[in-house]
């Protein structure tokens, strides 16, 4: 079976003119919306996987989009992350490189400067700071668990694109 398709144009100009005037700007809007949704999704994934109180939000705030060319927008600038949130890889992929090593002296807060097991995930360790003159140097026992915020965002891309096209 052969089907003929007739393109009915609203204006008498060329098809290329119509594409440039109507289709490309619309595609651009969709692209920007998809990039913004992707940034939001990745920030949400990072925030949702925070395990301890007192986060500065630095990693989530370091995720932004940047136009690479007329037809592409990048999300998460690696050179910026390497400079401003160096731990982005360790958080995403997990890392066991500190296990068994001693951390620099500092304090745990809130709570006792030297926490007990009951303080698990109730605070953070602040290197170089003391609490009432008390400091200690803990040995890292557990690896950083992979948070997979990049992959979780990638898994949401079909939904993001669908939302951006609406």
């Amino acid at each position: 079976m052969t089907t003929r398709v007739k393109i009915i144009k609203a204006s008498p100009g060329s098809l290329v003119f119509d594409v440039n005037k109507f289709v490309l700007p619309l595609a651009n809007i969709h692209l920007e919306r998809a990039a913004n949704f992707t940034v939001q999704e990745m920030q949400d994934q990072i925030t949702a996987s925070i395990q301890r109180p007192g986060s500065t939000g630095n990693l989530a705030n370091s995720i932004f989009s940047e136009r690479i060319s007329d037809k592409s927008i990048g999300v998460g600038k690696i050179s910026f992350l390497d400079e401003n949130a160096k731990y982005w890889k360790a958080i995403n992929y997990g890392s066991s490189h500190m296990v068994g090593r001693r951390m620099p002296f500092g304090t745990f807060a809130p709570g006792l400067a030297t926490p007990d097991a009951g303080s698990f995930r109730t605070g953070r360790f602040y290197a170089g700071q003391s609490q009432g003159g008390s400091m200690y140097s803990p040995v890292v026992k557990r690896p950083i668990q992979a948070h997979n915020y990049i992959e979780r965002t990638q898994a949401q891309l079909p939904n993001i694109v669908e939302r951006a096209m609406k």
Partner: protein
Amino acid sequence: MTVLTWQKQSNIENSIKKFIDAQISSESLQLLNQSGVATDVTCVIGQRVNKNWNLPIIQVYSDSKTTERLEIGSNNRLDDYLVIVECRTLLSGQERNLAEWVENAINDGMTYYEYSVTVGDPDNPTETDSGHIRIDFVSSNPVSLGDDIDLFDKYRYRTTIRCSLT
């Protein structure tokens, strides 16, 4: 009292492991260690790094799931499961080769088994052939965490797949 049986995420993890184990066994797959001795490749389930692992390993775990409504007006869902497959090896370059082998092996998907827990013998659940796992590749990248890192992190390759049940 009802003992909750394994749900889909655990079933998928174990079905993938069963498939990879069978492939390893059928090819008698081994990799050389630092001394040039052929070493068995093992497949493990779980996100947390275990110091008792003997490299090289293929680590498989289900990370999260995305749930879309199948059609308007229906509560039927289309569930996709994000599964991380990490190849961790002893020597540089092996991780890429092993990952490529894994990707080729799982490309066509595998049998989906439902597992029911055996009370009193939780290590030996009963498995039932319950369909097929369809695979879509989401990402495939080496994990580079730097030079000063643990052996488990040194030669890592991560493949992320989206699994759906058919």
